[in-house]
């Protein structure tokens, strides 16, 4: 297998993910509507309740909508990561995972390609969301749209690999409601997506600690700073380390000799 084979394979996996996304208009629409409902309705309602003082990276008082925009970008990537990775374990999709894994290219490469393809899709969703959000006064500096991109790649990889690891490890999470209740909601609410962590600290010290440990918090902070052309090194380091850990676990999970997948009996014999 030469470099060209790898390149063709990567391109093939990315194209397929893109085509599937374009063909599933419902998925695209719900990926957009979900954060927009939060932005347009939830944030409007809470605007007066939750005043936000001046915090980094913002230079002035901001509207609540502006504060939660990075959290909603994180939400798009969280849903996308869970959907594209966990869909592999659903019965309908198990077949396509087997098609992927029977390729002669190394498994780590196949999984990584699939992850990158998922991240690419999530990035399209995020920029579409930002384009609409601009009309609701979410107006980051022009440079922010560019500096956001590497942050989105890293946070997308982290969330995608978490989903991929879960898909190999947890048999019980075979419907999306389970994933919503046990992964998405806890990660989303115990983070800085909807409220700054100092607000959480006022309510409960241990909840604050929990939110700080949540890797999703750091993905959001990385996005928040990047959107304003700044770098949050702590969040970057935390997100990068979490990505490496989740990715290693995902590759381990799908390793044919040691992985957790060996414990799962494939249905239908």
């Amino acid at each position: 297998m030469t470099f060209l084979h790898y390149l063709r394979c990567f391109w093939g996996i990315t194209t397929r993910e893109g085509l599937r996304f374009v063909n599933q208009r419902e998925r695209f629409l719900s990926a957009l509507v979900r954060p927009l409902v939060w932005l347009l309705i939830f944030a409007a309602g809470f605007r007066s309740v939750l005043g936000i003082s001046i915090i980094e990276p913002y230079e002035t008082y901001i509207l609540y909508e502006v504060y939660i925009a990075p959290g909603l970008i994180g939400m798009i990537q969280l849903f996308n990561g869970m959907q594209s990775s966990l869909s592999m374990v659903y019965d309908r999709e198990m077949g396509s995972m087997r098609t992927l894994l029977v390729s002669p290219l190394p498994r780590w490469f196949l999984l990584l390609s699939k992850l990158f393809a998922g991240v690419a899709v999530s990035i399209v969703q995020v920029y579409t969301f930002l384009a609409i959000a601009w009309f609701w006064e979410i107006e980051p500096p022009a440079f922010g749209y560019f500096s956001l991109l590497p942050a989105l790649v890293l946070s997308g990889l982290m969330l995608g690999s978490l989903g991929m690891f879960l898909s190999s490890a947890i048999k019980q999470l075979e419907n999306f409601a389970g994933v919503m209740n046990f992964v998405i909601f806890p990660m989303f609410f115990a983070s800085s997506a909807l409220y700054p962590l100092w607000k959480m600290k006022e309510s409960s010290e241990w909840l604050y600690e929990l939110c700080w440990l949540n890797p999703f918090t750091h993905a959001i902070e990385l996005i928040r700073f990047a959107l304003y052309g700044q770098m949050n090194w702590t969040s970057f380091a935390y997100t990068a380390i979490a990505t490496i850990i989740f990715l290693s676990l995902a590759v381990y999970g799908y390793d044919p000799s040691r992985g957790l997948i060996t414990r799962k009996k494939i249905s239908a014999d």
Partner: protein
Amino acid sequence: MSNNVINDKAPALSVSNLTHHFGKLCALEDATLQVFPGDFTVLLGLNGAGKTTLYSLITRLYNNRSGSIKIFDFDLHQQSSRALSKIGVVFQQPTLDLDLTVAQNLYYYASLHGLSKKLAGERMKEELSRMKILDQLKKKIRELSGGLRRRVEIARALLHKPEMLLLDEPTVGLDVSSRQAILEHVRNLCHKDRLAVLWATHLIDEIDEGEKVVILHEGEVLASGFVEEINKKVNTSNIRDAFNLIIKSGKKI
């Protein structure tokens, strides 16, 4: 199928003393079987016999902990990439993307094997023509009948010119004419292209006289050989009676 000279006496697939457990459940026990180039070998077993487990191990969805699997001269553990490049697989579950067209599905599969777009385009036309479904190229899978979908999956499995084809109950749920057409095509591939075929099924009427059969029951290979040999050993006149007798006794012959 390949330009390489194939030694007909060397097995395309050689499974030796293969055992596999899922927790306490023993899915395969000391299974040994061989498939040769040009042979249409039927893996016959009831539902739950261990056929899909065997296919999962041969396609390296997971590794075997004991025993060995060789594809031509390549050990599946040590030379997995070269071994996997020799096989084409049709899984029991449908594995095509329903919202994509036939061509898009085939291009995707070809890319997984590192084929260029040009070569993939040529090969898919060739394979779809052989199955007489070239006119379906631009249709979405969702619009195709179950029989046509299966044919697309078989064409897809042949895109990278494998030397062995593994099919896991490919005719389940299809009507009689689709079943016949698929069986005929795969038998032709065997005879004309010297392709080694392992065809898993629980349908006894899919076996022809003069073909090789491996009887798998509760994870054990109870019998293997030509239909006539098996009939002779258990003193029956047809493979249906032989199969019933063998699985009833549960003993190796």
